[in-house]
């Protein structure tokens, strides 16, 4: 696991059925592009999060392929339609094989 990777998610606690809500996610990660060199001139190997997904009750909401030009601590903000109470699952996939997960439940108002 890359050191210091820590996911954060902000989802409203409640919503009415059919509401569109705004979800914000951020994961602290250095997102080493593979383009930089260290003091000795050796390339620093690429180490990024290459995929981010969000699912709601098993149904996919968003699936993002990420590339090396994305900055440190990638932040995503997107909207989702909430048909019923349930659970959002968020997953980040690291180059080194690590998977970081977070989930948030949402109730009907």
């Amino acid at each position, binding site marked *: 696991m890359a050191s210091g990777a*820590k996911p954060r998610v902000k989802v409203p606690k409640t919503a009415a059925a059919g509401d569109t809500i705004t979800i*914000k996610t951020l994961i602290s990660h250095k997102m080493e592009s593979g383009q930089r060199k260290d003091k000795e001139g050796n390339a620093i190997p690429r180490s990024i999060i290459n995929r981010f997904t969000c699912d709601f009750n098993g149904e996919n909401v968003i699936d993002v392929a990420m590339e090396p030009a994305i900055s*440190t601590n990638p932040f995503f903000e997107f909207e989702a339609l909430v048909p019923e109470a349930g659970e959002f699952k968020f997953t980040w996939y690291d180059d080194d094989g690590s998977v970081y997960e977070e989930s948030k439940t949402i109730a009907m108002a």
Partner: protein
Amino acid sequence: MTLLKNTLSAVAVLSIMGAAVSAEPADDTLILNEETEMVTKTAAPSHLSDALDEIYSGWLFRGTETRAMQADDFDNPGMIFVEQAEEVWNTPEGSEGKSCASCHGATDSMAGVRAVYPKWNEATGEVRTLEMQVNDCRENQMGAEKYGYTSGDMTNMVALISSVSRGLPINVAIDGPVAETWEKGKELYYTRTGQLELSCANCHEDSYGMMIRADHLSQGQINGFPVYRLKNTKLNSVHARFKGCVRDTRAETYNPGSPEFVALELYVASRGNGLSVEGPSIRN
């Protein structure tokens, strides 16, 4: 023809200068996390009455997106560093086996601390910045190594301590035992340095609100420090900023943590008495 040419170029010069006139601070209110209303504009403290009527937080001189980013802790990248410092706060270090929390408890207990620093320390007879106080704790209470004055660890810790004071008014003392240091800071503020012969006041008192090329000059208030800068994606300390400014006048700078910068920090902080503590804020 020559006359016409001259007139035309004179018009051209005038219109270029016309583009460089002042742009006022934004007319906006900072409400943190939809609950805490911050003071970003207020009457200048009495010691400043000759120079300024109103004081403005640097927040009002930044763009719409940058201002919005600071209004929500989730959007504020500076809070990532605050969280990192929170872990350090609770982790024992040094020969005494103590953490910050061993003596101070939860970080909430630090509320109000940032607002009154730099501050007189009776035991050592010196004016202390928050950084000096953190290092004193590490050295004498924890038996741990001192942090570098503008190091990431230090700046993150100062940001953590600052974050629990957000919304409280800056209120540094300028009289009594600190008066001498304050006067020294004031002198530095008005002293021109470097090949460009600029003092702090030339930009931040005489010309705030103007555009300096693409940058909107603020009053140079430090109520928002440590500052997350979009240009270097980390938290920046007051003294690192001072150093950058003095360097930009093309002068040899004082060192971060030097008596000169401590005095300057006290004076500049006092110019913001009444503004809310904002650190960690976001600037360009």
